């Protein structure tokens, strides 16, 4: 069984939010809720010495997922494909996982009765397709592949040491990696939503 991951090549992301809106389009998710993937837009420094950082964040698919650890109803669970997801029928909407996730990647649905999050498009990957955001990103900033296959593009980039997890301080072992993102940005304490 493949152990899939996503690599965000920030060098190719210009914050177009096609992945953000595309996810809602593909999964027919309502407007007015945070959604499963969102864009970070962070500016550092002071005029005119300024840097700006744009990149999407979604569920990091932790190998040691705190959301699963805290869920008392086995709603947050690791599927047979190794993907962390929410079993909607079991979720009571207690939002413990939402509060626990260090990446702010679990989101309550519109009416707050259920938690939701990115599952790497389980519907699509089961059929052999790429996650929708990966498929649709106009500049190819998102790379999807098997982390256990040393020949996959994602493994080769990781082997070259060009990418790492978003927050090095958390030890949840994410399967989403970021290339070309300097440390002070990626380790900012709170990745808040911005417009």
């Amino acid at each position, binding site marked *: 069984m493949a152990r899939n991951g996503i690599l965000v090549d920030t060098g190719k992301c210009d914050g177009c939010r096609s992945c*953000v809106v595309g996810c809602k389009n593909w999964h027919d998710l309502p407007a007015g809720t945070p959604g499963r993937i969102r864009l970070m837009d962070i500016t550092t420094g002071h005029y005119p010495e300024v840097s700006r950082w*744009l990149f999407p964040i979604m569920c990091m698919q932790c190998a040691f997922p705190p959301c699963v650890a805290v869920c008392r109803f086995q709603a947050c669970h690791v599927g047979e494909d190794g993907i962390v997801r929410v079993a909607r029928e079991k979720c009571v909407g207690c939002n413990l996982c939402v509060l626990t996730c260090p990446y702010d990647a679990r989101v309550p649905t519109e009416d707050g009765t259920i938690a939701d999050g990115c599952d790497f498009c389980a519907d699509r990957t089961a059929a052999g*397709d790429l996650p929708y955001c990966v498929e649709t990103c106009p500049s190819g900033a998102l790379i999807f592949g098997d982390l256990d296959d040393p020949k996959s593009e994602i493994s080769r980039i990781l082997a070259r040491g060009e990418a790492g997890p978003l927050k090095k301080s958390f030890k949840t072992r994410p399967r989403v990696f970021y290339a070309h993102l300097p440390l002070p940005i990626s380790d900012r304490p709170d990745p808040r939503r911005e417009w």
Partner: protein
Amino acid sequence: MNHGERIIPTMCHGCSYGGYNCGMLAHVKDGRFVRVEGNPHHPLNRGKLCAKGQSAVQWVYNENRLKFPMKRTGEKGAGAFKRISWDEALDTIAKTLLETREQTGPESLMLSKGQSSSWAGLHHFLWMRFMHALGSTTFSNWGPSVCYSPQLMYHKAMIGGPTYARPDYDNADLILEWFTGGGLGGPARGGVETLDTNLRSVSVKIMERVEKGARLIIINPQLIPLGANGRAYRWLPVRPGTDAALALAMIHVIIREGLFDRDFVAKWCEGFDELKTHIAPCRPAWAEEITGIPAGDIEDLARLYATTKRACLRVSEAPQKADLAAFAMAIPILMAITGHLDREGANIWAFPAGRLGFPTLSERVTPAARERLPGADVYSVRTGGRHAAFFPAVIESLISDAPHRPRALLIFGSNPMNTARNPALIAEALKRLAFTVVVDVAFTPTSRYADILLPAATRYECRGQPGIWRNHLAMSHRVIPPLWETRDELDVTLDLACRMGLGGDFWEGNWTAMCNAFLSPVGVTLSALQDNALKGITLPSTDYITRRERYEILFKDLPNGKIQLAVRAFEPEGAAAFPTYHGEPEDPANAPELSAHYPLILTDEHSDSINHHAWMRDIPWLRELKRQPVVKLNPATARAHGIEAGDWVQIISPHGRMKAVARLFEGIRPDTLMAQHGWWQGCAPLGLSEVSPLNDGVNPNCLYNWENRDPLTGDITKNTLVRIEKAGPPQGVRPIREEG
């Protein structure tokens, strides 16, 4: 994968509505359009879509859609209408147009379109033909031409070519993005002056090239997303409206240091020695004072551009409008003297493998009618063959009740109340028209002034129209039948023509025959294109498309077949033959007395990646990402004015007022406020109401002085001086209502 849904290949219409756009696969389930994905066979987007394309479904099923033909029952502008039948609507229009022509002449009929159909697309041809068949040439985009055509007039006069020389990103080692949205804006800022016809492919190309080592330089008062994530080699935050000074100083440095392309200048340019004299005072130190860019940076930029063999630059919407001439002449000179023209990696002229179109019957317009066109004697109108009215003159003719003013106006998908400067004056002009028809997919502030409102189907509900890009032909296809009583604008136009007795000129109303006529120049039939819905048809490329340095042909219409570094033809108009910097009339240097009360410079950006000009803010998936119009300002400026992030603020210029939410951004000059144009829409699912285009709404066009224009082209300034203060949110307006 398809979830058991029917998949229909079509094209997106988020960029050039009705033209060649990104290929899309529309999914339909139980008769409902449910989702989209990119068409992997389409060469422009290869399976990708942008955020706007992704939200097509919510655009089609939108509460703001205009559903039925209506006629006005209340005062103009009040927004009260009554439902009528298509027959009543079209018969009334046909009768009124014919009567108006009879009484006040063909030139009193006018048609305007905005983004509603691509330039040079099928709609454009059909509507020109319709007006010409009636003997009128008063085709206007009713709204100033403020981005594409004014600047192009200067480029063509100097360096020739049929259109802009566009950046060859694929081969460039240096890319200058000059006051562009870097591929994120509307066509005005994103795509038009590039090789590609849509928005996203531009930034994708640039990012790919940067990854391969090309240097990217951003010249813009704000750090655009393209320059983020470490991609910008330099960001030069130029003071808004002073870009020409920067360009002139670059020319100065290139000539002073002998970095120009001697062979190219000797062989292909005229006027170099005079240019040398003219440019002598434009030293980097002079430009530093005006632009705020250090002289050393200007010198570096000039040297880098001149000495990088494969260097391209893109200007899209001109950053200077009243002083357009200085900027629009300096840029072609920069490209010409460095030889960065029609060479690999430089600015090149791109041609499709064929052009689509049918005759527009322009010979039916009499010379006398052309001479009566509003603004017929303005330089750009006169030299452009008087095929379109001059927008400011149209407005002035209406306000002054001039004898040759337009009386009846057909508006297809244009919303001048929001897109044109001085909306209060536009409202007054709209009120003075005897008869106005608005055809649109949605209610707009402009539609409040219509006598008759016609509901257009979205392109996803229409049979489609062919388009071409490079050598690829494709067409959009119907995804679902028109909702409510909406109709395809092409059919409406054909129907109207037949009702007016013009059936002979309009294929007796036959859509298929019209499409075949449109396709005939490339020898492809409509049915062949329909049979190739998924992949389109690829025409053979020609040597002329791929060849470079085609100077004999490109410059052949220029005097002596050479680039004109000086345009003598401008002198009799009272304009300078060389670019001469004046600056925008309302800036701190030119209007110090205003500066005392209005200390900040305001300009606006057209669009961003999630909205487009004055529409698409009613789409919930897009609107939730930016709920309110923002004005970007530097945190230091905000502190000085007691403003915090997220506050509603009032922006006051000598001419008007607008409101916006403060977005604090370190990546913008502290003396500058960047507003965004095109806001007015409500979004009911998110509880947001429509806002007036007039003062105290959210429209930057209220702030500019509409008298400040480029004399030759009428381009109207988008720079002014303002002050900013905390305020409450704007009032919502009552939606347009339908009466019993």
